């Protein structure tokens, strides 16, 4: 009885507090939306683990880094961090005690986020249920475990500073720029790296390979990028993982399911406007291979027998289900990794509330050999007006080892 009275009181108290400080709730909701845009949950959640409680092993060439627990647990999370501490981590890549964070955590991008937004994200994170999860944060082998070396890396490759809107551009463009260059950290995947693992800013958004997937060029380049996409196409893609000619798969499918499909449409539109208006850059197309080339002949035979039932003889695909291959820029990127791995291992498209089907490309690595896959990928990259470099059996073989774990 008395307990029940007590329980009744608590919500009243909470209400009272809310009534006294309405901005707190508003800030938290805003922080939640910003954390969604930043897709924090994707890295800070282990497989089968509690959301935001860390423990995911991020693979790097230098070893695996375990992501930290960012629930407000006092001992194992960031419960004892102040909002200044949080801002410092995001803006400078430094922990409260001053130790350096590795840019596996993309602070070079989060540095662009305004202090106000960081405070809102902080406020949201503080409302999460605290989860006790002690993560080993020192898993890199010597000498990479010497965090002090990041000071040098930052000096060479990191330019701190919040985003500055360009007065010559529209509000919408600037909003999109802020989202893409900051929380969206799209460049972290879509920009090629130098040998120190830093984004090559002069090739910003011109494409990259991540985990044996191709993160394509997303400049407005007509041949290699989003030149043929409309703003509406980009918005639809971010919202559902589908356009009239393309379906997201691989890591981008996860981004869509966890992040962009839950963002406000106005924000998605702003990002699309930014991407379309930023400018175009990309390598020009080579001349397409002749249809009589033996690789094309072999590839065509495989395609007709194995692929055309879904992707159509014309390469047109079927809306909502099978991506077009004709004129699809993902197929003609310099890097063919996605095409190769999706044939070998299969792939699954995004599932959202409005597009639940999540059609899957079947795994055909058991059926097709390296040379056959090289031939059919070459065929796809050079048919129906497509033009891109052919693919060798050696490339396929190397990728097969990586995506089937045959080397494990």
């Amino acid at each position, binding site marked *: 009885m008395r307990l029940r009275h007590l329980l009744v009181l608590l919500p009243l108290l909470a209400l009272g507090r809310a009534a006294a400080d309405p901005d707190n709730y508003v800030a938290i909701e805003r922080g939640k939306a910003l954390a969604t845009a930043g897709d924090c949950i994707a890295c800070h959640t282990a497989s089968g683990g509690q959301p935001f409680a860390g423990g995911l092993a991020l693979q790097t060439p230098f070893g695996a880094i375990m992501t930290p627990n960012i629930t407000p647990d006092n001992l194992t999370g960031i419960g004892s961090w102040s909002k200044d501490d949080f801002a410092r981590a995001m803006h400078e890549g430094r922990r409260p005690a001053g130790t350096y964070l590795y840019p596996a955590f993309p602070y070079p991008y989060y540095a662009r986020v305004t202090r106000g937004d960081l405070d809102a994200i902080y406020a949201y994170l503080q409302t999460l249920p605290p989860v006790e999860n002690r993560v080993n944060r020192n898993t890199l082998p010597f000498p990479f475990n010497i965090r002090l070396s990041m000071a040098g890396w930052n000096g060479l490759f990191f330019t701190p500073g919040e985003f500055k809107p360009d007065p010559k551009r529209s509000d919408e463009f600037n909003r999109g720029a802020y989202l893409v260059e900051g929380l969206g950290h799209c460049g972290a995947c879509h920009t090629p790296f130098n040998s120190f693992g830093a984004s090559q800013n002069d090739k910003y958004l011109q494409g990259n390979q991540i985990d044996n997937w191709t993160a394509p060029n997303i400049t407005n380049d007509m041949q290699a990028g989003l030149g043929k996409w409309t703003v509406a196409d980009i918005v639809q893609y971010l919202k559902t993982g589908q356009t009239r000619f393309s379906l997201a798969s691989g890591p981008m499918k996860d981004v869509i399911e966890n992040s962009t499909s839950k963002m406000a449409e106005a924000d998605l539109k702003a990002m699309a406007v930014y991407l379309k208006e930023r400018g175009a850059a990309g390598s020009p197309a080579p001349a397409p291979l002749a249809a009589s080339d033996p690789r094309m002949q072999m590839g065509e035979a495989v395609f007709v027998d*194995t692929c055309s*039932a*879904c992707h159509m003889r014309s390469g047109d695909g*079927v*809306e*909502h*289900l*099978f991506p077009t291959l004709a004129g699809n820029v993902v197929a003609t990127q310099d890097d063919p990794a996605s095409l190769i791995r999706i044939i070998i291992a*299969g792939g*699954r498209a995004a*599932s959202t*509330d*409005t*597009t*639940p*089907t*999540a*059609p*899957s*490309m*079947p*795994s*055909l690595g*058991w*059926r097709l050999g390296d040379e056959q896959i090289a031939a059919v990928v070459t065929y796809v990259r050079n048919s129906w007006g497509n033009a891109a470099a052919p693919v060798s059996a050696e490339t396929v073989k190397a990728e097969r080892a990586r995506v089937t774990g045959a080397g494990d």
Partner: protein
Amino acid sequence: MVRRLPRKDVVIVGLGWTGSILAYELSHTGLDVVAIERGPWRDTATDFNIGTAADELRYAVRQDIFLRPKQETLTMRNNPSQTALPIRKWGSFLPGNGVGGAGVHWNGQTWRFLPDDFRIRSHYTERYGEAFLPEGNHIQDWPVSFEELEPYYDKFERVAGISGKAGNIKGQIQPGGNPFEGARERDYPTPPMKQGYQQELFSQAATKMGLHPFPRPSANLSAAYTNPYGCSMAPCTFCGFCEWFGCANYSKSSPQTCVLPALIREPTFEARTECEVTKVNLTVDGKMATGVTYVDANGEEWEQPADLVLVCAYALFNVRLLLLSGIGKPYDPARDEGVVGRNYAYQTGSGSLAFFENVNFNPFAAAGSTGVALDDYNSDNFDHAPHGFVGGASITCAHTNGRPIRFHPTPKGTPNWGSAWKKAVHDTYQRVASVGAQGSVMSYRNNYLDLDPTYKDALGRPLMRMTFDYQPNEQKMANWMADRCDEIAKAMGAKSTQINRLGVPWNVVPYQTTHNTGGAVMGSDPKTSVLNRYLQSWDVPNVFVMGASAFPQNAGYNPTGTVGALTYLALDGIFNYLKSSGPLVQP
């Protein structure tokens, strides 16, 4: 030792078509729903991978994705004076298994029964007199009319995306459709499928004869389609691996393509696969169900309590589960008393094989529903008086495949092996068309289901026993239909034809059809039915039983369209039950 699990609002036995639809619709309202399926999960890209799906030996001959008789089978005999023996290898019918059930491996032929089918006893009595009905019959009117079921047919067709051409929209006959069909509100959701050359010849010949051919309604889709649940499908590619196979390119309506993607997103839904429900549990007085007991793949027993039990395990296994659970009075043919197992029926097949010259029929290019049909000899669309039989058949020129292990026709008299056989196979493959009649089967006192006294399943429970034979009425009807088929086949320009009569006595070995109906029929009278019009058990009001087991007798069509429609009608009943409890119909 049975372990008890936390209570759920709804437990669904079997995750096929009816189970998926009910699971989605109920969990969508926030109810806690668990579906328990004894077979494995099945997914398009993995289990019907385009590189593995088209394997006739594996799927059609070795029956890889069907229920394994080792796990459960039936015993059969033709009449009560015989001893039933196990169906050790499926032949005449092929029960499915796994998530998706028969919805994975069906052909996709999707029909609405005709209005007279639903009041067949009254209709025949009015027109021909009661004495016209066959001896020993148990023919019953359905407790629903076509008109009442029409909106539910529409609902199922929209979820499945059925491709077809309407013949009667709100009373207006539509050219190119079936003029005999019951009036419908609107056309099919996608256009009719393209047909093959045999079908073209059939259409022309039938039209010249004054008959009314139309494209068969198809769950192999003619166009890309997104259904009301948001699930998307692709157009069919006529691959010729439809019935008995999963579809690799999302173009056959199935739970996988039409329901599961939306269902799995419902946060209150859970599927448990490779768990076999052994019993529906009842209160001590037997008046309410308390849930189910099931055995998981490790052999451990679990009790799943629930407020509502939906039996969606396929017609035959529904009946067995009711018998094993003590729901409803088992049918005793000697006394003609009891209801569970009563009115089991099947389907007739007969027709004419037409041999041509100088044609390229390309039989391998086919969808499961490829066919042009006519209903001039179905239901009571023709005068039965001179013929002395009840019932009718849909006549179709169909081909669903050219898979050579089972399809390598030769003219009668050809040896079964040797060079002569080889030559005949080579010469005939491209040149055979089939005009077939799929006919009704009435229900009879001595065609029924009960528990076998001798044989047990893998868990040690009695198998179900099927006592069935085609009765003189069905023989007469099917053979008359075969003659009608032959007339049309000859009119198509065949060089020669070969009539196939109904195989009597019913033989369990050659594949005929998996249209097993009845055994837990719906009706207005608890003395002659197990379920009311909402498929709710008369005896245990929180048990509903889906599927063709509800058909009082079978009509001249594939059952799935009607099974789907009844499921949506039952859903209305279930929602009412959830509000008010108790029996929905007073007998």
